[in-house]
């Protein structure tokens, strides 16, 4: 739709609404609903109503809602959304790795670079980034940027932040990723990052670190502060967090919203109902059980529905103990799994099979990793392992609906090759403890956030010293390949390396069995989310948010 026709259509709709309201043909509520269907937030509705009340003419009113210079109509007012499932207990994205904390604190932060929906790095606070040597990265920071507390965003501030993350006493969850890194302030706005070993992937780790003044770190949990487009206003713990537009943001003119309010609903069903009932702009994630209803509403033009894929659900079978120590058993397990059933049941058909650490759209993905379910071959592998009669085992499962669903389907699948599974449901921290601290398990199901960078998850799970290598998988060939991958700057060669790593780790050794995408659907209305929602990291990329109708 062209700029002018868009404005005309919109202006006509708004004018008609205003006229109907002024002549008393529709109630205030019907008016508000109409405004909302036009895609405006509560702030705009209030502005229009106020204008009506003061007797302003219609031309003034449409001017408020239809800026003439844009090819889209920007949403004003406060964007109100519903975040479900997890209630954030802290707004500190540095020490709290929960998605809820990351999302709740996001609007006030900005990053040196961020990862867009395609997985490409995109400069934000950094004006330029260079990495000619795999061990040296140079960030040139934009000039004139200030933190919300008034301090300058410069090379020294970034250096201080890196040092803060590296201090283990601060408990930054990215700490291990920053091990051995040193920094050099080249000039006021240029910082050089020196890595202890070749690592072309370190920039992706930096893209997960919001840039904040070290002097604000102690207060981040309750009053987050960074250099992002919105300033923290209020947090009613357990209820909502509110932000107002920061007029001093480096690109203040690009930010069209007056504010953002995120309401927290612990129950996804109730949150989805509240979204459908009220003037809320989005709900994330929606209830999976209501996905069909939301899709039909999308077909009817009521809303937009996006089944985002921030993560991958996986099964780990221990490589150094129990019956799964034999690689043939692990291979049999992966061949026996019915990924269609894993998607249809737990995810209500909203997910898709996964065979890799990467999305199939990634240039590093290889279709050679895919395979069909094959019960005969699985039985044969069980026989080769001397376990033709099967065995009894437990799958430890976090008490999250879809993980329980996955384990239940796997129980049924694995029964076909003689493996008698008991689904052991535990709270997520207990499962995490079991996996990484006590290693008291043989099989466990969990999920992890996807990354566009191929090395990230393979480093965690397939390297013999990887921090998330819960199955104690050791393969020196894989370790050597991973070292080579970190050194290699040629993309074609990297593709080959990571393909080989996955062929060995995921197929030959089956130390890590990807199941399906961890789908968290979003539904929204009155705004276009496509540009900024989800992506590979769990942040909503607020600095990039261009809300349109």
């Amino acid at each position: 739709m062209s700029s002018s026709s868009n404005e005309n259509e919109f202006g006509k709709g708004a004018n008609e609404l205003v006229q109907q309201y002024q002549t008393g043909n529709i109630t205030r509520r019907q008016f508000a609903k109409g405004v909302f269907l036009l895609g405006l937030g509560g702030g705009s509705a209030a502005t229009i109503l106020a204008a009506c009340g003061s007797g302003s003419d219609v031309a003034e009113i449409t001017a408020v809602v239809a800026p003439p210079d844009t090819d889209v109509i920007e949403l004003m007012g406060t964007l109100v959304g519903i975040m479900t499932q997890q209630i954030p207990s802290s707004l500190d994205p540095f020490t709290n790795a929960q998605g809820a904390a990351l999302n709740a604190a996001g609007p006030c932060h900005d990053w040196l670079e961020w990862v867009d929906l395609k997985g490409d790095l995109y400069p934000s606070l950094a004006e330029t980034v260079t990495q000619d040597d795999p061990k040296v990265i140079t960030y040139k920071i934009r000039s004139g940027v200030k933190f919300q507390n008034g301090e300058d965003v410069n090379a020294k501030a970034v250096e201080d932040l890196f040092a803060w993350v590296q201090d283990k006493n601060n408990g930054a969850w990215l700490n291990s990723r920053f091990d051995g890194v040193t920094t050099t302030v080249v000039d006021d706005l240029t910082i050089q990052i020196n890595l202890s070993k070749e690592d072309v992937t370190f920039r992706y780790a930096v893209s997960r670190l919001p840039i904040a003044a070290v002097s604000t770190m102690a207060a981040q949990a309750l009053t987050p502060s960074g250099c992002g487009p919105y300033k923290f206003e209020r947090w009613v713990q357990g209820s909502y967090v509110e932000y107002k537009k920061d007029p001093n943001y480096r690109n203040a003119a690009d930010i069209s919203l007056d504010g953002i309010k995120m309401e927290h609903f612990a129950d996804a069903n109730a949150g989805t109902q509240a979204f459908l009932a009220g003037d809320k702009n989005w709900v994330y994630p929606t209830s999976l059980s209501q996905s069909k209803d939301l899709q039909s509403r999308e077909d009817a033009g009521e809303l937009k529905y996006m089944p985002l894929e921030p993560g991958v659900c996986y099964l780990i079978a221990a490589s150094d103990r129990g019956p799964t120590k034999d690689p043939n058993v692990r291979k049999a397990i992966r061949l026996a799994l019915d990924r269609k059933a894993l998607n249809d049941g737990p995810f209500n058909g909203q997910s898709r099979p996964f065979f890799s650490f990467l999305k199939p759209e990634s240039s590093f993905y290889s279709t050679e990793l895919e395979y069909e379910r094959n019960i005969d071959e699985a039985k044969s592998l069980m026989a080769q392992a001397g376990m033709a009669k099967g065995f009894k085992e437990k799958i430890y499962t976090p008490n999250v609906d879809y993980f329980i669903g996955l384990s239940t389907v796997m129980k049924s699948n694995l029964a076909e090759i003689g493996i008698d599974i008991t689904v052991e449901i535990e709270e997520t921290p207990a499962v995490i403890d079991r996996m990484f601290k006590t290693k008291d398990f043989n099989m466990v199901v969990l999920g992890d956030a996807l990354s566009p960078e191929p090395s990230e998850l393979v480093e965690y799970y397939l390297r013999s010293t990887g921090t998330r290598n819960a199955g104690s998988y050791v393969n020196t060939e894989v370790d050597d390949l991973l070292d080579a991958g970190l050194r290699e700057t040629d993309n074609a060669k990297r593709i080959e390396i990571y393909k080989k790593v996955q062929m060995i780790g995921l197929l030959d050794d089956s130390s890590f069995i990807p199941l399906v995408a961890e789908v968290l659907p979003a539904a929204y209305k009155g705004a276009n989310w496509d540009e900024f929602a989800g992506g590979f990291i769990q942040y909503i990329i607020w600095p990039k948010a261009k809300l349109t109708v």
Partner: protein
Amino acid sequence: MRYFLFRIAGGLLTIFVSSLLVFSMVRLIPGDPASALMGRAFDPELAKIMRARLGLDGTFIHQYSAWLKALLQGDFGYSFLNGAPVGAQLQDRFLRTIHLLLGGITFGLLISIPAGLVAARHKGKWQDGCIIGFTTLMLSIPQFVLGILLIYIFAVRLGWLPAGGWVDPHENLSLWARSMILPWMCVGLAMSAFISRVLRASILDARNMEFTRTARSWGLSEREIDRKHVYRNASLPTITVVGLEIGYLFGGAFVIEKVFAYPGIGQLTVDSISGRDYPMVQASVLLFAVSFAIVNLMVDLIYGVIDPRIRQK
């Protein structure tokens, strides 16, 4: 006086035992605060440092005595998850839960008392049948289902009331009241079913007691007998049930708070358990115990007022 002191001592003992129990039990749950905070990004080395920093590397006795000592000085400690003082967070949440429960209980009593009286007066008639049917329905619907149903009907379909969330009453009192109607209904409807049934049964029982027959033989009217003897006697079991229901509601408020996204103490407690926020869990469970003890104490005191024989015993 001895009666009251005895009851207060019992309450204090309950609170002390609860504190010991919750302190031990929360540490017996698998998974610790470090695992909860780091989640999937777990780092064993960092977790060890974090445990030491949170004071979790001392012995159980050492940790318990330090906590108890601080508690006696009115210090609930600091949240492991956000570093904020536990006392201040609890105060806000507790007051909101009190708002929720007081409104809900009032709503429930406004329904259950007339319903119980009408059902008892019209025993076996259509009015009784309707009330029995309604209460059976309310008793058979789980509270979270009732909550979702109320949201669907009054918020999604009719659009009369907000679906959930919390509004600060200091900012907008009328919006706050509107946002509270559905949660109050959910609390009230569920408790009213049980209380009205108990009240009905107690009244019918009291009407068959010897003292009622004696009053009739004296020539008192049925209305007078009800007012002077039946209601007074029927109120004792009803008050017991109301007290128990209130205690139960403190514990069960989480369900309603979850469905209506209401930031009360129930939700805080469950989130704190999931996040292994030991100081918060300990303090909130202790607060539940204190609340329950106070409600019980009040019920006991009301008993004494209604029936002087209890005081004398």
